[in-house]
């Protein structure tokens, strides 16, 4: 009984994680702007990794493999948002996609 609940929970979590990853890929291709694409990649990536690792850890029991899985998840949660932030920050500082007229308006008003 307990095994069945674990199996179903892990399967549901894996399916949700895969669906999130698919929508991430779709957003990466179809969004019109660079920043919205980065937003899709950065936001969906962390939750998708979390769901998949959670589902896998339910199936692998309570041993060293689960600890390693969660350490991998910690590493992904540290590095993936940082790298999307770095990309977006560098693009903004390089002037990519920044509207010049709105910059002048906001600086003349303040």
């Amino acid at each position: 009984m307990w095994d069945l609940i674990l199996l179903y929970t892990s399967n549901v979590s894996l399916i949700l994680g895969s669906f999130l990853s698919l929508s991430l890929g779709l957003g990466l291709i179809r969004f019109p702007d660079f920043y919205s694409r980065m937003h899709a990649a950065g936001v969906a990536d962390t939750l998708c990794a979390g769901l998949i690792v959670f589902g896998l850890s339910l199936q692998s029991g309570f041993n060293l493999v689960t600890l390693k899985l969660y350490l991998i998840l910690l590493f992904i949660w540290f590095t993936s948002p940082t790298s999307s932030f770095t990309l977006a920050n560098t693009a903004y500082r390089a002037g990519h996609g920044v509207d010049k007229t709105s910059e002048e308006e906001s600086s003349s008003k303040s």
Partner: protein
Amino acid sequence: MMMRDLFAIVMLFGIYSLLSAAIFVTLDAVDVAFTEAAVGAGISTILVLSTLALTSSEEKPPQHKFFLPLLVVLITGTALVFGTLDMPDFADPNAPVHQHVAPRYIHDSFQETGLPNIVTSVLASYRGYDTMGEVVVIFTAGIAVSLLLTSVRHKRNEPGNLKDLGHHPIILYVSQLMIPLILLFALYVQFHGDFGPGGGFQAGVIFAAGFILYAMIIGIDKIRETFSSACLRWLAVTGVVLYISVGIVTLLLGGEFLNYNVIAEDPVEGQHWGIFLVELGVGITVTATMLGLFLTFSEVKRSQ
């Protein structure tokens, strides 16, 4: 092949390397997958991207006829397919490749070298000559690149090309957290290569990746204070000399070149020592060469 944007092509090439690393894992080649992921998806992509940034050619005009190359490719492909009709089936246990030397490696490797990882023992002990040649090839590539690009580099105090990213506190904090762990992991991979996937090459590349991350965030000048080009050259030479001197020591102790059995009284102990020193030499040379490659590429003067 029909794409115009070179940047996208390089990114797709990185993804292709990562996918082939995943295929290697499903084909039970864990050491190879490790190396391909680190080297192919990491260092190769960085080098091609640096070249793209330096030659500053993003787009390309439409090119000439494609009929003759297509014909050549089709003829070659057909000849190769005809040649594979005699090959053994996929994953057949009775294929000739599994018959002669491989059973000896699998059965006798633990008694003769005492290492669980058969790939490391074959790489460092049974096929030590090939690995020596490989270390020399890496060293030669580093020397060749520094010879080619020395005359077009920035001098010491001119401003460089790489704008460092170390202004933002988030990037600084996360990199301060991650870089010591990356270097520690590289040390782990170097010395744990006897028991699991790992070894000198992968450890050297991960070491270099940690320092490259530092160079990208803090700046080239800071890392050149520690790793000047002379220092990197000496490190690369040290690795190669370490490898060859292990062979010379075994010659002086009475055995053949690179026969580790004669290093200590117990042959297995001698194998342990020999493999340890040899992998250390490989790791040092790979680290120095990969780091030297990246720093040389990022110091080239951008043409006006």
